[in-house]
């Protein structure tokens, strides 16, 4: 769907449109494709049998409605490396979950098979990067983007490359050797370079959220800078989004409630999740403190905070002051260029290119 806005000349400048782009498998769906058998089962699974990651449907609904409440044009898009043949089951699943979305792109695996490009079946960097750039060209030039992926494939790498390309930090002269090193299909490299040349330049990718579905060590993602936020559950994602102003605290509470009601979570587990975000400096202590009362009122966090003794409170305040100095920068602020050679070296060394 194309986002359009009209504005009276005397009206105050509206906030830019929002573009939420989601990966599907392991980010939205708990798809299993570790073995051939589970891969086949996933391919032929009915919509009713597909399982979504706890809280994800509530989060997408909340993101959409929060943007609409604020009067911001919003679009939710899915990009999946699954073949279009499973599209109807996926669309039915999204309808069952009452997930509002504006577009979904699948990877044409059949054409890769026909062309004998077997490597392309598993190589998703080129496909996803091209689709992200295509989607960008369809969106308003100043639309802000939030990208959602997981730690199974190379989402953090793909999304970071995309963010840096459209920000103008990564020119085609640097992008091409990176894509070649990842062994992206040369035809796709050409397409990506052409699309990149047409994209409006700007620091439009605000955040990249990585769902740590396989529990990768969060430190692995430090190489991608503070823009990438690895989260262990969607309550953590919702908390960061609420702190950034994309959700209201009540929306985050709804995501937390979904985890409590349908996924066996407890308020204690959620408060631990919040503390973890603060320790990893993805949420400032002040933001966590501001979020806590509405979450507590909604019954999502334990009713009573654990009271520390006076000296512990004083020490805590000192630590918070120190932490504030090294906290995550505000979204949208300029991001230092990433060292993609170091990232790729690390991926190669660990032989876990699929982990990040």
């Amino acid at each position, binding site marked *: 769907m194309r986002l359009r806005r009209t504005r009276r000349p005397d009206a105050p400048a509206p906030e830019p449109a929002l573009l939420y782009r989601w990966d599907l498998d392991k980010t939205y769906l708990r798809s299993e494709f570790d073995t051939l058998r589970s891969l086949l089962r996933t391919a032929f699974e009915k919509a009713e049998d597909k399982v979504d990651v706890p809280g994800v449907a509530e989060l997408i609904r909340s993101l959409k409605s929060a943007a609409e409440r604020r009067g911001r044009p919003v679009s939710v898009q899915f990009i999946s490396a699954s073949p279009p043949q499973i599209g109807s089951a996926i669309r039915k699943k999204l309808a069952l979950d009452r997930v509002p979305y504006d577009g979904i792109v699948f990877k044409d695996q059949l054409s890769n098979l026909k062309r004998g490009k077997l490597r392309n079946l598993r190589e998703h960097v080129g496909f996803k990067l091209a689709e992200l750039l295509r989607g960008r060209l369809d969106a308003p030039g100043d639309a802000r983007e939030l990208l959602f992926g997981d730690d199974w494939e190379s989402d953090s790498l793909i999304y970071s490359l995309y963010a840096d390309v459209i920000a103008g930090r990564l020119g085609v002269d640097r992008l091409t050797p990176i894509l070649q090193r990842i062994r992206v299909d040369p035809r796709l490299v050409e397409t990506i370079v052409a699309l990149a040349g047409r994209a409006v330049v700007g620091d439009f990718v605000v955040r990249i959220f990585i769902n740590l579905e396989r*529990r*990768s*060590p*969060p*430190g692995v993602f*430090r190489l991608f800078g503070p823009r990438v936020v690895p989260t*262990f*559950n969607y309550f953590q994602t919702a908390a960061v989004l609420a702190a950034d102003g994309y959700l209201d605290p009540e929306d985050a509470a709804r995501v937390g409630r979904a985890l409590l009601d349908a996924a066996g*979570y407890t308020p*204690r*587990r*959620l*408060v*631990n*999740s919040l*503390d*973890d975000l603060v*320790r*990893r400096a993805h949420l400032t202590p002040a933001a966590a403190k501001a979020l806590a009362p509405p979450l507590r009122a909604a019954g999502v966090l334990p009713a009573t905070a*654990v009271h520390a003794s006076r000296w*512990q409170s004083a*020490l*805590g305040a000192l*630590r918070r002051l120190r932490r504030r100095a090294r906290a995550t920068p505000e979204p949208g602020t300029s991001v230092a260029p990433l060292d993609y050679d170091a990232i790729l070296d690390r991926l190669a060394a660990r032989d876990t290119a699929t982990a990040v």
Partner: protein
Amino acid sequence: MPTIAVDAMGGDNAPDAVVRGVAQVSLTTDIECLVVGDERRIQAVLEGVSYNPEHISILHCRDAIGMAEDPREAVKRRDTSLLVGIRAVAEGRAEAMVSAGNTGACVLGCAKHFRLLRGIRRAALASVYPRQQEKPGQDRFALLLDVGATIRCEADELVQFAIMGSAYARRVSKVASPAVGLLNMGSEETKGGEILVEAHRRLRLLPSVNFVGNVEGNDLVRGKADVIVCEGLLGNVALKLIEGVSEVLYSVTSSAAERRLAWRLGLRLLSRGIERLRVLTDYTQYGGSPILGFEHLFIKSHGRSTAHAIGNAVKVAAKTVRDRVPGEIADVTAAAR
């Protein structure tokens, strides 16, 4: 699920091994771990490993007790990870505690902040150690107590140790009626001096304890008793002797392999058996030893504990909470009075 306080800063490999152990537990169980120690250092370890933050909370404190510190002086400092953790358990923020730190400080810290169970005069540090299985279904570990918490004991205290050890083995090892032996210098009931003779007489009359009589040093590693009771000084010497002999055996075996080719080949042939023996006697399997007699459980892990050992200690601590071990000890003690 129970909440277990874990002293992140205690032990030779802290905080790395401790935090890694907690991280492993967080991925495989629902046990809630309250990790006590320097938050920055704990988080630095967590960043590099797989973990589930939903089961981990951190209680920050800056100080830690060193392994070689004088325990009496060390427990005077309030902001050490050990003391902060023990107080967290005493205040109800956690239900049991695990530490691989300074043993003396662990015992003194418990004595300082935990209340003794009603009717219990002295706490006991129990040690789990591998022994020969003589009967089918017998646990491959025995419990020896006391191994250092109470240096000299009266007969009354030895009887209480027997009750506590029996209750612990019944709940944790699931032995319906654990065989309890009194460590002595002979099997005859008149051996060992006034205190041991009196303890023997009273244990024989105690219906809640399956007393099998005196056991001698050579019975320690056999399957005669599931629980062996002795005073702290003797228990500590016996335990260290077992550990020392085991280490010397491995050392002798290794050096033998280096001396002659025939011996090396022989050992190679036996390698699978030796590996099984190593696994059997691996202290990391049982995680830690309980300090018994308080209202709260404390599991003391080996100072050299690896992440695996810490993980097992946390699981043992959770099991003791779930199985209501202090409650069982209190019930049996009350019935014996």
